[in-house]
């Protein structure tokens, strides 16, 4: 692997890991606040799984550049994070959280299935492993989208509002990084254009089946992972506070 490809792969792994980490944190904010105990536990499980995926991607990056995943997670400032804005938006209501997790799960399951054929074997192996539990997440969030969409007038109104707000942001999942084309050319990562096509087909079908209408105007679509909403600053202030206050934090 030449240096340019290696740097591109490090950037991609960072973006993947940051998406999972920030989404996991947003999901974890529901712990103790879920609509019922069972769903509280279920979402905590999903949050832990996404956090586990972040660990996998930071670990692959570490193998390339020796970086410390804990330093990356807890000691970078917002401007250094490379997650998309979609995952940093506040958790909103249950409909907002379930819809975001659903849209992300479909993307992740498709991306991982394709990445399992990566020419970079550490990535191929990790993707094949992670995709297993992603299928279960997807069944869960898919079921919620359907039930909220076809439930009461209030539940439909709430999830439609979430869709109107999120649809544009979700498109950022498919904006390639500046040097991502190098990785695609080498067969290291899937082509996001193909993933997007499958994602659009699948989400559109399920959202329509759930009685929802796709927004006619996609709204604001962020394009660069170097830009963030103001929400990321307050999220990190909370997520990083313990590590920054006591980096060892061995006793509590």
């Amino acid at each position, binding site marked *: 692997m030449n240096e340019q490809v290696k740097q591109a792969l490090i950037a991609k792994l960072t973006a993947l890991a940051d998406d999972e980490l920030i989404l996991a944190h947003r999901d974890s904010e529901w712990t103790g606040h879920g609509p019922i105990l069972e769903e509280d536990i279920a979402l905590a499980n999903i949050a832990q799984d996404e956090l586990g995926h972040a660990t996998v991607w930071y670990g692959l990056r570490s193998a390339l550049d020796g970086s410390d995943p804990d330093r990356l997670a807890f000691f970078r400032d917002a401007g250094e994070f490379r997650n998309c804005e979609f995952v940093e938006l506040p958790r909103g209501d249950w409909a907002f959280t379930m819809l975001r997790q659903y849209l992300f799960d479909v993307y992740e399951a498709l991306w991982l299935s394709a990445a399992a054929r990566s020419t970079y074997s550490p990535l191929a192996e990790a993707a094949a492993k992670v995709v297993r539990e992603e299928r279960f997440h997807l069944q869960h969030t898919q*079921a919620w989208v359907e039930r909220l969409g076809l439930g009461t007038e209030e539940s439909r109104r709430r999830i439609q509002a979430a869709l109107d707000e999120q649809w544009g942001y979700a498109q950022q999942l498919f904006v390639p990084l500046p040097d991502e084309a190098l990785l695609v050319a080498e067969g290291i990562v899937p082509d996001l254009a193909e993933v997007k096509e499958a994602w659009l087909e699948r989400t559109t079908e399920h959202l329509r089946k759930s009685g929802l209408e796709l927004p006619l105007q996609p709204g604001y679509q962020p394009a660069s992972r170097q830009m963030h909403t103001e929400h990321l600053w307050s999220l990190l202030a909370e997520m990083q506070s313990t590590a920054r206050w006591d980096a060892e934090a061995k006793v509590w």
Partner: protein
Amino acid sequence: MDTQWPRWEVFKQDTPAKPHQAVGSVHAADPFHALLTARNVFARRPQAVSMWVAPASAIFSVTQEELAEGQEPKPPAPDPRPSTFYVFRKTSHKRSMTFVDYVGELEAASPQQALELARQRFTDAEALAWWVVPASSVTKSENSPETVESWFAPAKDKTYKQQSYYGVVGSHVSKFKRPRGEDDE
């Protein structure tokens, strides 16, 4: 108005060679939702290969004591009238979990008749309690390899730390207990 979702009993099978066992209950809006939450609550860490759920309201449950005193409770009236029943039996008080085990299915005209037949047929161990459930009320997780893998396989390689692994600030409470009799004047 009762806003609580219905309660479902959850049966988990640990390995293909073991019976499904009652492990507890969940609240859920519908059968598939019950399966999803059951998987999260009862099979994230422990081993499992299959799960069943049944609405608690559909279960005809009778204890040994009730049978001895001739005070069988009235079974739920299933509609439409089922012909196949699943029979579960509790044979031990030993462990902390309920362990009402699946013992088999049988054909009967009513839950009472299913119970009578079960008492004649499943005699290899003393029954402390019986659960009779119409087969039509039971929803099962899919047996396809893909589902088994995504629902149950990841749990196997997950590691976790027991609560006792973590240190706590301070000292054990015993340190502050005064010896017996010190207060007596």
